[in-house]
């Protein structure tokens, strides 16, 4: 029997999970990595790289590498114009249409790029099943998560990405709801739960009521363009202001800076200060180094954190509650590791939020649970979600008439009667919109369609009932019927920011043409991944503000030299394709740092005993 998986298709990282023996587990790749960086790179001979290899190529071949593609899903060029100058890839498209991303000589749509990420996760899951000795490891169905605040176009784009990867998307579920499902498994968490989900590119807040195994979303709010990416960009801009770096001229340098500021951002969740270190920067001999204190960092990101609080207040109000009536607050998404975020959430809700389940993994775990519910048909748990945005149609004078209100439990339906304005009129134009604003132009255009085949009658006589149905995925379909003749009209909606079925079909064929699997290349990537893990762990220790102090107290100078040399040699080997050298140098660095690892472990324990701040040092598997 073919398999079904749960997938968290994230802005920064993606994960795949399954339910095994009744418990959800995240699947790791051959190197033991659970997180797949959501990065796609086009190599020579049209080879597609996904994940960490693509991440490395961001530094060496930035113009052929795409990251944060989720920010472009279901969007138009006008939505992303402001930020595209910081991306190394070129974004194009006509106003009011789908965005295109240029990769080398190929021109891809966001669902295609996401499709490559999904295909890699599918492969990862199949490899895991094979390794277990499964005779039929094929994975052909998935539950994929999206931000709760995703609109119809963004959801549809995600479903298209699944199809392009050869996956039947059983269900699109909302990330905060998935997280709540993972938390609710043990039945310990009941009552009103708020899920605060700040990821790489999107922010969601959902308020749920959990009772009798039913997870009912009461309200949701958010911002599909707010997350860790924005924090990174502020830091990159800080460095650019310091150094006069021009993003359009030095795309590779921007990526090196971006990598360095992300490291510093992570460090700042643990320490009171961190250094942004860039080895090489155009026009600067000896590279760049700048110390950022936690206070400086918080002043910088305060506006971003503040932007998450208003949606929280609105969600609480829409749920008909006050903050004190929320029983538990759950944190989801990597950006909730930022201490300031935790502090502000705690202040808003008046209770300590919890994150017992790894905030990077919890969404994928919930997706696996939902996938299991769908295929097993077991009825202990049920998820009832809502549509985040009101749905309406444009009426006379460009005003929106709302048909399904936001926060309506889905599936939901609504209908509207139409008639003709002139005698024998046989068609009516209908414009569908999503959003809360009064005027059509201020809302998201989902699509337009022409209602055809109205029987010729005097004006005002036809009675056409148009039915709007939002399914459990939050995706819209439209049906129409002329009530006097009872004729069902066929409707084809032309999506404003989506692909037509024909376009998806064509892409499906194209992606088959380019699908190729190179075993040798894959082995090299695995070895590089392992080498990079050791490199990063070592670099992270060396970057600690108290490293000199620790080294002086516990290590010999010969040991420190050996570590630094091992690090430099492995770093040099990374740019080669020499598998043997990479393996040997990784082993060497591993040996050289063995004592250091013990020292660090003891240091942490002692510091903890001494009551010093070591906030979740171990839990960071970076």
């Amino acid at each position, binding site marked *: 029997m073919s398999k079904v998986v749960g997938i968290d298709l994230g802005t920064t990282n993606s994960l795949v999970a399954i339910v095994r023996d009744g418990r959800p587990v995240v699947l790791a790749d051959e190197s033991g990595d659970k997180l797949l960086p959501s990065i796609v790179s086009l190599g020579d001979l049209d080879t597609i790289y996904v994940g960490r290899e693509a991440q490395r190529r961001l530094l060496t071949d930035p113009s052929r590498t795409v990251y944060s593609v989720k920010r472009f899903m279901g969007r138009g060029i006008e939505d992303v114009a402001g930020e595209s100058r910081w991306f190394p890839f070129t974004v194009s498209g006509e106003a009011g249409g789908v965005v295109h991303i240029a990769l080398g000589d190929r021109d891809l749509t966001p669902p295609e790029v996401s499709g490559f990420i999904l295909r890699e996760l599918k492969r990862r899951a199949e490899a895991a099943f094979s390794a277990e000795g499964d005779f039929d490891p094929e994975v052909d169905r998935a539950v994929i998560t999206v931000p709760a605040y995703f609109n119809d176009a963004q959801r549809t784009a995600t479903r298209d990405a699944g199809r392009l990867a050869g996956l039947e998307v059983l269900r699109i579920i909302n990330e905060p709801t998935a997280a709540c499902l993972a938390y609710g498994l043990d039945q310990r968490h009941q009552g009103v739960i708020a899920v605060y989900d700040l990821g790489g590119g999107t922010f969601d807040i959902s308020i749920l009521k959990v009772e009798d195994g039913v997870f009912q979303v009461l309200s949701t709010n958010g911002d599909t363009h707010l997350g860790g990416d924005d924090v990174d960009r502020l830091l990159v801009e800080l460095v650019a202001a310091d150094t006069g770096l021009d993003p359009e001229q030095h795309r590779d340098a921007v990526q090196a800076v971006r990598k360095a500021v992300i490291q510093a951002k992570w460090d700042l969740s643990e320490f009171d200060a961190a250094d942004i270190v860039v080895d090489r920067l155009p026009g600067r001999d000896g590279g760049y180094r700048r110390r950022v204190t936690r206070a400086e960092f918080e002043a910088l990101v305060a506006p971003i954190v503040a932007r998450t609080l208003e949606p929280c207040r609105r969600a609480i109000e829409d749920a008909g509650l006050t903050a004190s009536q929320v029983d538990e607050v759950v944190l989801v998404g990597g950006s909730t590791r930022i201490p300031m975020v935790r502090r502000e959430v705690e202040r808003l809700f008046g209770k300590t939020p919890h994150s017992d389940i790894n905030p990077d993994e919890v969404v994928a775990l919930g997706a696996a649970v939902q996938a299991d519910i769908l295929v097993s048909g077991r009825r202990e748990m049920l998820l009832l979600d809502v549509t985040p945005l009101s749905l309406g149609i444009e009426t006379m004078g460009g005003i929106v008439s709302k048909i399904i209100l936001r926060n*309506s439990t889905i599936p939901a339906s609504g209908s509207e009667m139409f008639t003709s304005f002139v005698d024998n009129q046989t068609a009516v134009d209908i414009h569908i919109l999503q959003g809360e604003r009064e005027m059509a132009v201020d809302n998201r255009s989902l699509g337009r369609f022409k209602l055809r085949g109205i029987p010729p009658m005097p004006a005002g006589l036809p009675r056409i009932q148009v039915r709007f149905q939002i399914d459990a995925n939050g995706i819209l379909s439209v049906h129409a019927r002329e009530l006097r003749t009872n004729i069902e009209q066929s409707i084809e909606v032309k999506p404003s920011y989506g692909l037509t079925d024909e376009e998806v079909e064509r892409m499906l064929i194209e992606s088959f043409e380019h699908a190729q699997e190179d075993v040798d290349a894959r082995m090299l990537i695995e070895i590089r991944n392992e080498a990079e893990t050791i490199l990063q762990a070592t670099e992270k220790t060396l970057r600690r503000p108290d490293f000199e102090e620790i080294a002086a107290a516990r290590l010999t100078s010969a040991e420190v030299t050996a570590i630094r040399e091992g690090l430099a040699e492995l770093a040099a080997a990374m740019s080669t394709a020499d598998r043997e050298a990479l393996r040997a140098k990784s082993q060497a660095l591993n040996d050289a740092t063995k004592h250091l690892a013990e020292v660090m472990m003891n240091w942490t324990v002692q510091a903890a005993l001494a009551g010093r701040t070591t906030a979740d040092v171990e839990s960071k598997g970076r």
Partner: protein
Amino acid sequence: MTLGRHGDYFLFFGLPRRLAVNQQDLEQRFRALSRQFHPDYFYNSSSTERLASLERSSYLNDAFRTLRDPIERLEYLLKLEGFAPKEAHESSTQVPPALLEEVFELNEELEAIQEMREGGAPAADVAARLDAARKPIESNLAEHERQVSALMATHDQQWHDGDLAGRHATLEALRALLVERTYLTNLIATVRREVGGDAAAAR
């Protein structure tokens, strides 16, 4: 009023056509019916069954949304029993006769405030007077709420007693009260918006 294929909302939930509803009982029924109809449980079923599940759970969700809110529930019952307000727009634009005098006074007061504002009076004073102007309508609305509650209880008692004529008279009275209530609510919202604007200007 055309009914859905699944009977009316009350029937669908297995509830009598009464206006008082036990919220907790309603929620329990909603969860039980969701477990029965939700599309999640029909993935392996035929397409006909899947479609039926989609339709029923949509209907269920619409019904729950209507029944859990006392005023929406009342409006729905009025429609069911043939006491719907004639046209939606009529109720919001035409001043109900019982409110004519009060609305007239309010309009005069609002004009006076407008002159005061144009005369350059401090924004805080304007806001305070707007606040005061709102008070009589607010107490009138509160009085309406009380009357609606009382009539709803009367209706349920008449339903229990099988007093059809009495019930219809009560529903007729409730319809009139509802039209006034909608008008008052809109009026207050309008004044609040003005106050909000002035309060912002005062800061």
